[in-house]
């Protein structure tokens, strides 16, 4: 979901003509997620990823929402897994200025699954550059032992790439919990889907 990373390659030029790239150093944009149980987001959800993933660090993020955490395998242009944990009603899944003309709607505790799906759709259209968005499925699904939903969708973005996504979530005690996978329809989504299923099935609430 946080695919859109403005960056300047001038960062390389800091070191003038000395070694460019290199595996040892980096400014810590991503940290390693090991294939073992861990808590995500604000700590209220525990998941077990079936293999190593990369977690987007919050050090450099400017629109950090504590309840949201993003992972990727191959980079956000190709795949990303996002967690929403314990988001209260009246809050947003991203930071945005109140003055922007187009805005992502806020989450409300009394939202039904179609309303949450609509909120995510607006996120994709407003923030993530989706030109065409198709819901391909919305069905009930248990999540962490609570009645929830599974939301499947496809979207065509301004870079002309079709991407596919699946979100599994539930509103538990007025808060939103969600795991979302989004990836390029060619190869990458399908390659990461087993991971999403494993993570969703392993997810537990930390009380």
């Amino acid at each position, binding site marked *: 979901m946080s695919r859109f990373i403005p960056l300047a390659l001038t960062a390389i030029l800091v070191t003038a003509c000395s070694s460019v790239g290199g595996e040892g150093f980096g400014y810590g944009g991503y940290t390693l997620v090991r294939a073992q149980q861990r808590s995500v987001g604000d700590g209220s959800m525990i998941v077990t990823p079936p293999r190593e993933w990369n977690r987007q660090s919050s050090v450099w993020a400017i629109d950090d929402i504590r309840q949201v955490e993003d992972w990727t395998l191959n980079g956000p242009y190709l795949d990303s897994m996002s967690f929403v944990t314990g988001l209260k009603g009246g809050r947003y899944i991203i930071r945005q200025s*109140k*003055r*922007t*003309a*187009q*805005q*992502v*709607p*806020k989450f*409300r505790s*009394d939202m*039904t*699954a*179609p*309303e949450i*799906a*609509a909120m995510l*759709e*607006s996120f994709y*259209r*407003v923030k993530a*550059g989706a*030109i*065409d*968005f198709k*819901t*391909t*499925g*919305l*069905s*009930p699904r248990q999540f962490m032992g609570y009645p929830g*939903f599974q939301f*499947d969708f496809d979207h*065509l973005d*301004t*870079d*002309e790439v079709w991407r596919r996504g699946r979100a599994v979530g539930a509103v538990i005690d007025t808060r939103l919990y969600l795991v979302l996978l989004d990836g390029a329809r060619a190869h990458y989504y399908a390659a990461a889907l087993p991971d999403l299923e494993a993570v969703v099935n392993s997810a537990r609430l930390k009380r």
Partner: protein
Amino acid sequence: MSVLVSRRGLLAGGGAIAAAALGTGIAVARILPGAMQPLIGPGYKPTDRDEIGLWQQMERVEEEIAGSNLLIKDPGLNDYLRDLIGNVGGPAAKDMRIYLARIPEFNAVMFPTGFAVVFSGLLLRMRNEAQLAGVIAHESAHFLRKHQIRQWRDVRRKTDLLAIAAMGAGVAGGAAGVYTGDLARLAQLGTILTMLRYNRSLEAEADAMGVRLLADAGYAPMEMSRTWEQLIGELDASAKYRRKKRDRGYSLFSTHPAPEARMADLKLSASEVTIAGRSYEDHRARYLRAIGAIRPTLLDDQVKLNDPGASQYIIDTLAQDGWNGLLRFYEAEVWRLRNRAGDDARAAQGYAVAVQYADAPADAWRWHGIMLQKAGRRAEAKYAFAHYLSVAPDAPDAPFIRQQLQFL
């Protein structure tokens, strides 16, 4: 409208130039439609070296745009647009091409070789065929008056473009490459060819000639100035909702009459080209038939951006020609997404109104059901959900709705 600057950017540019004009006391006189003759005829091909070079490059741009998957390829709609440009394209009508892009912005772009790209946001906002034809006529006028090459030559004189030497017949016709994403950058950056930004007098020429082409083809020429009114109204409504002034560049509008001056000029020109006794049409019915199938998608694309001021304005404008189930539904959607205090009640009422119309979309029944369910009106919710499933049994969310029915 220039090749690149969106209507919004154009208004900004117009405002700035007008401010400067007012400052120095020089006003741009209205260009008379009668004075506007086309500078090219049917089957036009360039003979000047620099223009040939420009054309070769534009052929490549057209090739890339034609290959973009952001285009709307519906044959009926594309035929309709082709017919329109055939009506108002003047002598070059048969030579021009038109592409429709799925981008929810109010914009249309004419390239120097006679192909135009119309954004779906434009199609949404036009009330009738005359308004759409007016925009296309304005764009065609840029082509017919050779504005692009004239402006390009003007800019060349003034700047130190390094690449001049290679321009011309020497550019390899087989140059190939990929323009992925540039179609959308058209909307964002508003430019693909910076040297083709038009100055105010070229825009005035396009207005004058456009209104004449429009009238000659039998369309009501006054409709051209109305599209300006509508855009300004929308920008105002959007900014007002977010409690701010119109975007940077538009603050000039509050004190300088530039867009109003253009509107005034257009009204004058429109009355000039009107021949007494002749009937002029807006062909609204024909237009609605042509875009009928895609209108829900256009409204959807706009409303889901959650810009309530703009979306409400657009819906109200379209509703001046009559409310229907589709418009009432999307009005309710605006309120649902807007979600200020009391909006959930407003939206609920909106859906209840929408479903009374025969043309209410299936989605209206689903949302109606959800609102009823939340209000505890179970029997009515059950009816609404059942109706939804009967008109859309293969809807993607049918499994979810079926489960809801079990609880009711």
